[in-house]
């Protein structure tokens, strides 16, 4: 086993242990903080699937994150007052079932990512960054100008939605639920990356011409990865809405897209568990440094700069060593 593997194990064991200790000492605030790390880390892992493994630097993944959040918010909003989302041509009400909400969020994200990817993956480099940003901003302004769901003010989830057999309104239970999802997604990503699909995807990132010249068209491979990536990020977005009890256009804004990129770069581009580490560091800085000074982002910037300049594979590269491609 590589050092990266053991670093990942330590992180993945450390989080629930920390949450458990917080649970028995009654530190709900800490549990929620840890849940925040996990949920943001999950979103970073989703982005990393496209960015790290497929070389698609999307600056618009907030579109999928916010979409997931709004699905949770809108479903809860209608379930709460028992109203209809759509009445024509068929009747569709809200739901407070997380499983159903996630399925809808993931499905809608897949459709949206397919359409966005179809157009933006014809470009590359700066153009790709700008086009993905433009699509996300379209959604952002749409959310702002849609008064039915709070417009600029966002939308509250008064009662956390339900999951069979889990008391989702209890902080530790919700943490465990999110953690289970994180593990499941990590497992899936790990399999995908080391399967034939992953080989083709990484080949497409390193040298698309090479891929074409051995007879694998890079475009469908990248598009598929882009869609999978969006599905994961949407799931994280839905959980984020539940965690905060609140969704708002800021979930869709370019700041959010930027934060996702920061998780990936900080933790390690193309490192499976890297973005989780990035999100942990980000939340720690935001919480503890942010408590001391409003200019905490200045220090975040410094750390980011140092990472880019001196730690090639992010924090995971620093402590987990180089990747091996034997």
């Amino acid at each position, binding site marked *: 086993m590589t050092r990266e593997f053991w670093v990942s194990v330590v992180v993945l064991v450390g989080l629930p242990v920390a949450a458990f200790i917080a649970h028995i000492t009654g530190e709900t605030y800490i549990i929620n903080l840890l849940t925040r790390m996990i949920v943001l880390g999950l979103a970073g892992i989703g982005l990393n699937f496209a960015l790290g493994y497929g070389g698609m630097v999307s600056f618009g993944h907030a579109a999928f994150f916010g979409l997931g959040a709004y699905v949770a918010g809108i479903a809860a909003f209608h379930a709460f007052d028992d109203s209809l989302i759509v009445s024509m041509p068929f009747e569709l009400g809200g739901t407070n079932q997380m499983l159903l909400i996630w399925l809808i969020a993931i499905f809608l994200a897949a459709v949206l990512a397919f359409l966005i990817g179809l157009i933006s993956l014809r470009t590359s480099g700066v153009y790709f960054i700008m086009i993905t940003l433009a699509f996300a901003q379209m959604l952002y302004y749409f959310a702002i100008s849609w008064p039915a769901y709070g417009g600029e003010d966002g939308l509250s989830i008064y009662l956390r939605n339900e999951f069979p057999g889990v008391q989702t309104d209890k902080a530790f239970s919700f943490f465990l639920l999110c953690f289970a999802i994180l593990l499941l997604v990590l497992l899936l990503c790990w*399999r*995908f990356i*080391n*399967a*034939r*699909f*992953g*080989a*083709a995807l*990484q*080949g497409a990132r*390193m*040298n698309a*011409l*090479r*891929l*074409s*010249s*051995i*007879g*694998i*068209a890079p475009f469908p*491979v990248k598009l*598929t990865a882009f869609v999978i990536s969006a599905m994961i990020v949407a799931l994280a977005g839905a959980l984020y809405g539940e965690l905060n009890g609140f969704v708002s256009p800021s979930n869709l804004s370019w700041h959010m897209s930027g934060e996702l990129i920061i998780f990936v770069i900080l933790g390690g581009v193309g490192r499976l568990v890297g973005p989780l580490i990035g999100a942990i560091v980000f939340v720690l800085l935001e919480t503890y440094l942010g408590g001391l000074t409003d200019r905490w982002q200045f220090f975040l910037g410094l750390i980011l700069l140092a990472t880019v300049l001196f730690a090639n594979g992010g924090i995971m590269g620093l402590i987990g060593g180089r990747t091996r*491609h*034997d």
Partner: protein
Amino acid sequence: MTDAMEPILQINHLSKRFGAVQASDDVSLTVLPGRLHALIGPNGAGKSTLISQISGFLMPDAGQIFLKGRDVTHLSAERRVHMGLGRSFQVSNLLLEWSARRNVMLAVQARRGGSFRFFKNVWKDAELRAAAEAALQKVGLQDRADIRAMELSHGERRQLEFACALALEPAILVLDEPMAGLGPEGTAEMTAFLEELKHSIPILLVEHDMDAVFRLADEISVLVYGRIIASGPPETIRQSVAVQEAYLGSSSDAA
């Protein structure tokens, strides 16, 4: 016998223009089974452009390309590979961060399909590994399988590209200056390798090294300013006045 000599690759009246440059000017040529057809010509004559059109990375303005009798002019590069067209590039084109073995394994995967399989571990796949080992063996790189492509020498990278191309089990190989930068010893090895290979796989060879070309070729076409000015068996080309004047005579170009 005549049936067997149906061309593997046939190019009919191919033309391609870049602005003022006529890179391909009514080019026609064929490659027959078991034969090596060499394409020679000075720098900028349009050899690489022709190869790009054959392999589907550039669309010709006019003309047709037939692969094993089928018109592939409008097929994608990837489809042509699956129909048996293998190629090498003038400039090395590999997955540099990956080991030699992984490079070849991906080519085997491309050949066998399954790039949309999501669960089975690819790097432990015995079928892919065995086929990759066999291809590396063919080019003599079996002892370098674990070395990353970026750490291989220039000559070894060339061999690795061949291993990838062979792993695709091509019906024809289109090679763009495979000897370039190899040095005398490497060139001799590559020549011997191609001499062996051409019996099993027909080859269209673009090459500057005249010794190699005259030793290997069954047929030679001379391209100048995008136009084929002479085509025929090596003896005929060697003696052709037009070729002497346009190409072979000016030793600086031939170097």
